[in-house]
Every structure is written in C-alpha cells, then in structure tokens.
C-alpha cells in the first residue's frame, strides 16, 4: 500500500512539476502594447505576472545599457524607463531577465524645433558662379534630438537684388544647401527656418575671383642714372574676369631685368586694385625690362626703361702728403655735385696681385680713401677706381 501511495504521489509531483515548466513562459507577459513614444514622454513598460519574482529589465539605448528594477503592484510589474533613456530618440531594445521575453520600442524626436544647429563653410567664396559655400542645418528638439528625416527646412538667402528660398527635406538627420556665388562680389545673407522656428542671420563673403592679366606703367622724376631718385611702377586696376576689382592686399611681384641679365625684384600689394612698387635708379647707364606677376594667376605686359649716364668723367688725385686718395668732383647731369652715397670702389694691386679693396659712398661730390691707414709697404702700386660704370687706373709709388 505504502509503495502505491508513494508511487502515486511521485507521479502527481512529476505531473505538476512538468506542468509548471510548461507554464513558466506564460506567467509573465508584457501588457504594454504601445510601440512608439515621443522623447520626453513618461514611458513605463508593464508586465503581468503571477510569480513572486521581480526580474530586472535590461534596456539598451543609443548611448548605453542599463538594468531597470520594477515596482510590483497588483500582479503587475511596472518598469519606468529612466528619463535619460526616454529623452533620446532611437530604438530601445529590452529584455526581461530570467525570462525569454524581449522586444523593442521606438522613441521619436519631438515634433517641434528648439534649435536650428547650423554649420556654414567656407565663410568666403570667389565670385563667378562656380564657387559655393555649404549650409548644413540640423533641426533639433528641446532634448537635443535631431528631428525625424523628411522634416522640411527652408533655407533662404539674399544677394544684391535676389532673394531665394529653398525647401529642403532632412535626410540622414541633416539638411543642407550649396549656395553658389554670382558674378558680383559682395555679401550673401542666409537664414533658415523650420516649423516656424527661425535661425539667426549668417553671412558669406563673396570675394573677387583670381585676377586677369593687367598692364603696368612707370613714373620717374628724370631719366638719369643718378643712383638716387626712385622709379615708381604702377599697375592698372587688377580685376577678375567678371570685372570685379581684386581684393586689397593682392600681392604683385615686379621683376626688373637689366641689360646684362641681372634681375632686381620689388613688390607691392593692391589697394583698390592698384599695386605700386618702387626701385632706386641705377648709378650707371642701364636698360631695364620690367614685368609684373600675381604669382600663379596673372601677369602684366613688358615695359622698357632707359637710364642715361650722368657722370662722364672724374678726377683722381693723391693729396700732397701722399696720405689721402681723393676722387672727384663727381658731377651730375647739370654739373651739380652728385647726391651723397654714390658708390666708389678702390682696388689696389701690387705687381698685378690684388691686395686690397674698399668701397665708399661719395660725400659732397667726393670720395676719400685714407692711404695712411693702409700702411702700405714701400713699392709700386696700381690703384683701380670704379664708379658710375666708369673705371680709372692710377700708378702710385710708396716711398
């Protein structure tokens, strides 16, 4: 008898235990049917349960994951989704621990705009219609969620007399518009609007495009190669191909080639399209060929300038005490003393071997070399003097 009872009770136990195993998955059920919530809304997932366990709810959102502990009331488990998860748009994936239940719901961004996050670049573009700047607008709601794709954004811009409005639908969270320059320089003003929220004013500067070729001219006080006056080179007004004056500060290089092929260089920056540069006159007869460049962009015509020799001859003398070599008078085109600073070079040779060179600027029409300081040894010397493209030689004997 005892065996029979034991057997029966075992059988019942077995039956019961098997039924509980089968029933387990059905005991907890998700009773929240809403699948879409708006960001910032109070979100709570409800599960009906007959068990006395309170499993956590795993919740994975855009920025991370967490486990939510429930509140248990009248056989219902309440899982309140924390606000930091509920505030961010995206898919939320949940899984009830200790059960096979899982699911998802979507948090959509709010439907009104708080911020028009705007990015514009580059801030300045070239005139002519091929260069452009891009405006990117990300309409975001009060909780910093980009609005859903397909939201209409109006990007408006004004330039001179034209005003344009472009209706753009957001895609991949953003909307963007390329804003092209026109032929004129100036400033484009831009603004955007989305769902009656208006952005502030933005601007893009339209600068002149690259300059076209130009011409140059020269101004000088006289044609003499006096090594003293300056010649000024001036460009025509530099313009781009659309007749816009190039930006102030456009750098112009002037290359001056003289008759022996040496190159002198001077430069200037444009103001109102005109660049000027100066160069001191040569001190001897010379022919200059001048051409200007805006590096890599434009070049000028070639002009030629001739400079006339001013000093035709000069005297060389040694002072009575043999201590001073005196060169001059050095006279300019009207027989006036040449202005101070004309270069005079003295080279001394002894038996055709070069032993000394010195250069001095003229003063009051003369150049003086102190021979005493040289402490020359006794013997014969050749003095060679060069100035203003002329050359003279003097025999000198040191006693």
């Amino acid at each position, binding site marked *: 008898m005892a065996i029979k009872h034991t057997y029966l009770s075992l059988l019942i136990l077995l039956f019961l235990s098997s039924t509980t195993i089968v029933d387990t998955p059905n005991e907890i059920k998700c009773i929240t049917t809403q699948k879409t919530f708006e960001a910032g809304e109070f979100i709570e997932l409800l599960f009906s349960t007959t068990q006395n366990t309170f499993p*956590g709810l795993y919740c994975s959102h855009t920025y*991370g994951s967490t486990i939510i502990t429930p509140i248990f009331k009248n056989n219902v488990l309440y899982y309140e989704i924390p606000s930091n*998860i509920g505030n961010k748009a995206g898919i939320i994936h949940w899984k009830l*621990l200790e059960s096979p239940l899982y699911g998802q719901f979507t948090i959509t961004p709010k439907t009104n705009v708080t911020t028009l996050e705007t990015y514009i670049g580059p801030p300045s573009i070239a005139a002519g219609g091929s260069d452009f700047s891009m405006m990117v607008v990300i309409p975001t709601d009060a909780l910093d969620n980009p609005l859903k794709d397909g939201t209409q954004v109006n990007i408006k811009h004004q330039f001179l007399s034209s005003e344009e409005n472009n209706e753009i639908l957001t895609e991949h969270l953003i909307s963007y518009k390329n804003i092209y320059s026109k032929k004129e320089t100036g400033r484009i003003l831009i603004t955007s609007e989305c769902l009656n929220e208006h952005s502030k004013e933005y601007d893009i500067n339209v600068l002149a495009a690259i300059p076209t070729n130009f011409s140059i001219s020269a101004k000088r006080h006289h044609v003499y190669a006096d090594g003293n006056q300056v010649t000024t080179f001036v460009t025509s007004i530099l313009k781009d191909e659309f007749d816009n004056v190039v930006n102030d500060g456009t750098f112009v290089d002037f290359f001056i080639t003289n008759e022996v092929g040496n190159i002198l260089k001077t430069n200037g920056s444009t103001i109102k399209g005109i660049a000027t540069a100066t160069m001191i006159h040569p001190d001897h007869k010379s022919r200059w060929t001048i051409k200007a460049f805006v590096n890599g962009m434009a070049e000028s015509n070639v002009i030629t300038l001739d400079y006339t020799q001013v000093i035709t001859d000069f005297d060389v003398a040694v002072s009575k005490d043999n201590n001073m070599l005196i060169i001059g008078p050095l006279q300019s085109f009207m027989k006036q003393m040449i202005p101070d600073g004309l270069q005079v070079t003295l080279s001394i040779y002894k038996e055709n071997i070069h032993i000394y060179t010195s250069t001095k600027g003229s003063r009051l029409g003369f150049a003086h070399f102190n021979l005493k300081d040289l402490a020359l040894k006794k013997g014969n010397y050749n003095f060679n003097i060069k100035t203003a493209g002329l050359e003279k030689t003097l025999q000198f004997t040191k006693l």
Partner: protein
Amino acid sequence: MSGINKNILRSMLIGSYIVVIGFCIFGISAIYGYLNTGADRSSILHTELKKADQYLPKTTWAPLKNEGRSMDDQTLKMIENDYLDAWYVKLVAYRSNKKRGIEDYYTNKARQNIYNAIDLNLSEGTSMESTTLEHNPTLEFFSEDGQLVVLTDHNVIEYKRIYKGEALLLETSEVSTYKVILLLEDGFWRIRHMVKQDTQEQKKETGLPVFIESKNIKGINYYPQATPWDMFGVGFNIETIAKDFSIVKEAGLNNVRIFIPYDDFGKAKVKADKLEKLKQILDVAESQELMVMITLFDFYGDYSVLDWTLNHRHAETIVSTFKNHDAILAWDIKNEPNLDFKSRDQSIVTAWLEHMLTLVKSIDPNHPATIGWSNDESAIILKDKVDFASFHYYKKIDGLTATYKRLKTQIPNKPVILTEYGISSYNGFWNFFGNSENDQAQYHEKIQGIFSDNEIPYMSWTLYDFENVPKAVVGRLPWRRNIQQKFGFISTDGTKKVSFKYISK
C-alpha cells in the same frame, strides 16, 4: 657597565641623527624632483600621441558614394580612428562607470548623454563589460568645409555583459545600426549626434558544419626537440622540422598538431616573419603528405571583453593567410581553455570561444574548427558550434573505451577526436613510482588496441622527450617538469624509445 650603556646611548644618538638627516635629504630631493617634473611642452601640439593597439574591431567601409564634398583616404582614416576611439572610451567608461576620456570624443552636448547613462548605472550599481566586434560604416555626407560628416554604421555587433555589483545579470550579443554625426573640433572628430536605428539579437550561426574524414586520422602533437613551446623563435630550423616530419610520416602517421603562441606571433598585428615560418612548416608538411591541425592562441589567457577585437585580428590574419593551404587539416581554436574556467569565469571563456569559432568559420568555411578541451567532461561544451569535438585524455587507460562511447552518444552527429594522450616514462627522484619506458610502451600498445577496436581518431603527446620545458607550461615544480619532459617516443639523445613501435598501429 655604565661604559657600555654610554656607548649604546651614543650609537643610538648618532644613528637617530643619521636617520633624521636621511629623511631631510630625501624630503628635499623629493620636493626638488617634483618641481623639476612637468608636461613636456611638445605635448601641447598632440604630436606625440602614440597609438597602442587596444581596440581593433573589424571595420569595413561601404564604397564611398557620399553627398557633399568628396572624401579622401587620409581624412576617412582619421574619422575612422576617432570614431572607433569614441566607441572605445565609451566602452571603458561603462565598464568602470568613470567619465575619463569621454570629452575628447564627444561634443559638449553629446557627452552629457553618456554622463547621464553613467550616473544612472552608478546609482543602480550596474556596470557593463562590452565590446563591438564589427562595424560597417557608410559615409552619407561630408560637408564642403570638411568639418562635419554623417555616417550610418550598419550591423554593429555588440557583445555585452551586464553586472549588478559582482553578479553577472545578462550576457547578450546585439546587432545594431546607428546614424552618427561627427564634427571636427580641435583636431578631433567628435560625435555630436547618435541615433540608434535598429537593433536585433545576434543570431550566432557558425554556418554548416564542415565534414572531416576522421576515421583515418592518426597524428601526433609536435614540437621540435630543441625548442619545445618555442617553435617559431630564434631556434627555428626548417630542416630539423622537415627531418622530424619525415620521421612522423615513416612511422605511419598522417598528421601533426602544432601550436601558435599568441604573444610570440605579435598579438593583433601578426608578424610577417612568423607567418613565413608557419608557411615553411606547412609547405614541408605538404611535401611529406602530412596534414596539420593548427592550434591558435597558445599561451593566451586574458579573454577580457575589451581584448577580443585584438584576438580577432590575430586569428583573422592567420586563418585568412592559410585557409587555402593544402596542408591544413583543421583549426583548433584554443588548447585546453577549460583550464581557465576557474580563473577567468566559465561564461566569459565560453563566450570568447563561441565568437572566435564564428569568426574563424566565417573566414574559412572550408576547414573544420574545434576546441582542444583538456578533458572529456568539457568536450560537450559548444558541441553544436564545433565541426568535430576534440578532447585530451591523460586518465587511466581502462576508462577510455567507456568515455569515448559516452561522448559519441552525447555528440552523435559529429566526429570525436582524441587530440592529446600519452604517458610519461619518468621514474626518477621526483616520482619513484612513475612508469618506465617499458610501461610507456605497454600503455601505447594497449591504447592502440582500444583505438582500432573503437575507431578512435588520435593524436599522441608527443614525438620527443624534452630537455627544457619552459616554466610557463608546467610551472617551476621539479616533479611536474620532470614528468613533462618524458612524454616522447624519442628520447633526448635521439634514440627511439620502446614505445616508438606503437606510435601508430
């Protein structure tokens, strides 16, 4: 008496004086040292950022068809680096619930979202160990001024372990898609917006099982005699290996099991010279008509979730390099991983193995993969994922038949291969009651009988007795090392031991 006392007093005074002076000098030098330290000025320029390999998930860009400005390779690489770094600092932050590094890779507003998530998890006592294994970004948009990009990162595989305190609450693998807006700020591409578009549980499919002709497998575990456990080091000599392989071949065996040390091979960035050595070994095996079972991740024992991407790059390089080599018999993911169950937590080791199996099989769907469990009890773990089960047997020989039969019923559809067995012939000072060479021979004779009666494919341990067994293998203890030295069929002087007769049937 008083004289001695005086002397003691004196020496104490002098001693204390020296100690005080010593402290003073130490204090002054510490202050001086502190005042002389400081950031190197060049660090202002971000010029010395050395990039260590910490996190290398597989990243595959979709062909570039983006709107806006056209993208160049260098900028794309920069974006990829910073984007993955953003993931990395986030994963690290969630593991420790600390905010370090977040501000470098998230803009002012975006980082608030992560701080909120960290604060929430801190207050709940939750933390998360996680990694991402795969990213498939598509560049959607690149702004004209080069300061803003939008990308969609498709099917990001995320593996997460959620803890409450110390307790593991959940282990999950998800596949998610994100839309991300990044801005170029201070030379960093920083995440400005991120929106999860889709997420699914990862279906862990390892593909169809690869058939392995297991009946004829007669093999041996191989290390060269002079360089055991250091096969690819400076002592590498392909002629020695070729000679050994011909011994193996002539003994009637048809495959060898070899081991790839993880660190020695260069971890995530596998060294080319090591690959070349492995290629030479495979070529030699092929010329001897031997098949090779390659055991990956030898001497690796970390398994920490953030290390996974590095492990994956390691396996990816080796498997993809040799998947078409004719000498490959199979991939053994890891030797005896169950020995790490205690120290590293069984669930994390198993998850590591499962993901590694998935990866290896996705790269090489034509060769079977297995795990070299150290005992028969573990051999059923992941039995549905491996192509054949393998286990090691160093227990009493009498139990083998029953053990094998039990395994065959537990794993009915797949071959079960004994990939290590053997007995040491050491009976010296540290083990007087050990086995003699004759005992070893008897063992092998008997076990060969069991193999042929039960059709058990086998790989013995090992060809040679070794003179030097590294500490890392069995530790320092002489009674372990000495036993490990004597498992071979050929003794240290090169003569074949009695057991050699029974190396194969």
